């Protein structure tokens, strides 16, 4: 367990080293901002167990921690905010809640 922005986080399966830029066919890929640089995790979209795990992660971060999820493309393509879990292949950036400064 380690602290991510003040909350306890199980780092298992997350890594700063995964290549977020490379194409990831058939994968669900999350990049989560942590304050220590982003951590990434990848799931196989064809594996039911892994998709379930990805959904649990989604529920925790987006549902409980109120993170914002954005599906992103490469090379500056317009981002799309995802509000409901869809086990779709793609890359998502998870941003901690934002507030007016």
């Amino acid at each position, binding site marked *: 367990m380690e602290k991510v922005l003040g909350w306890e986080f199980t780092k298992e399966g997350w890594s700063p080293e995964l290549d977020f830029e490379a194409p990831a066919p058939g994968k669900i890929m999350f990049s989560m*901002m942590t304050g220590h640089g982003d951590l990434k995790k990848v799931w196989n979209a064809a594996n039911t167990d892994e998709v379930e795990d990805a959904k649990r992660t989604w529920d925790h971060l987006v549902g409980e921690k109120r993170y914002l999820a954005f599906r992103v493309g490469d090379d500056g393509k317009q*981002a799309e905010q995802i509000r409901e879990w869809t086990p779709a292949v793609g890359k998502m950036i998870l*941003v901690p809640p934002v507030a007016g400064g």
Partner: protein
Amino acid sequence: MPNGLAEARQEPTGYTIVTGVNDNTTTGCAWAKDSYGWGDNLAKAHHILRLQTNVFANWTGSTTSVTSGTADWPTGWLDTGTSACTTNTITFSTGNTDAANAVWGLDCWQNSKHSKVRWTPSVYKQIPKTAEELAAEAAQREIRRQKQIRDGARRKRFKEAANGRARGLLMQMLNETQREELEKDNHFHLTVHSRDGSMKVYRIDYGYAGNVKLIGADGKPTKRYCIHADSRLPYEDQMLAQKLLLEADEKKFLRIANMSRCRAA
């Protein structure tokens, strides 16, 4: 503390009491607090007394000078006043060469009740440290200093690594033009197609608060927006969060952000 006597006094660290057995003997009110005296290599004795409001006091000891306090101290009464002040502090010294033998005494009265308190402050002298103790202290100081250096270097490496990763992620999410802008000017422009069909240009400057600007037709900022995630995120992550939200949901961005107008040049 009208019903009890002064609070228990604590010897200053590194000092030992040499007199003062008659501390805080009381016959009534208690209002002398946090008071103590000590010897400085037995060359000079100092005493600090704090008096609460509504108190008169008269010095009866062997002091020879007053270093601060009221002008008529110690020859006359000290009136600490009856206003809302809570404490007065008087510092005076005897100039005695042997503080251990100094006679300290203070007669104090509370003016409303005239109940008398005889109070003799403690006199302390510093305990000389042995060579071993001094060496041990120096060693401990050096250990602390080395640890501070190591911790500082570790924090710096950690921060640099975090910033590097955040910059890498931001760069991946920018197009070629934006990457060049960021490298060259420390900001990048973002064109947002609003739901109403209009098109706006924003500039995201390096930073995390008040760093998003709406660019007018003349190319100058007209409005400034302040919106950010947890302030512990590296700036590059904050800038990416701003970019993503602006692109995906400009309306929400504008609803959350605090806006201020930029002054005309």
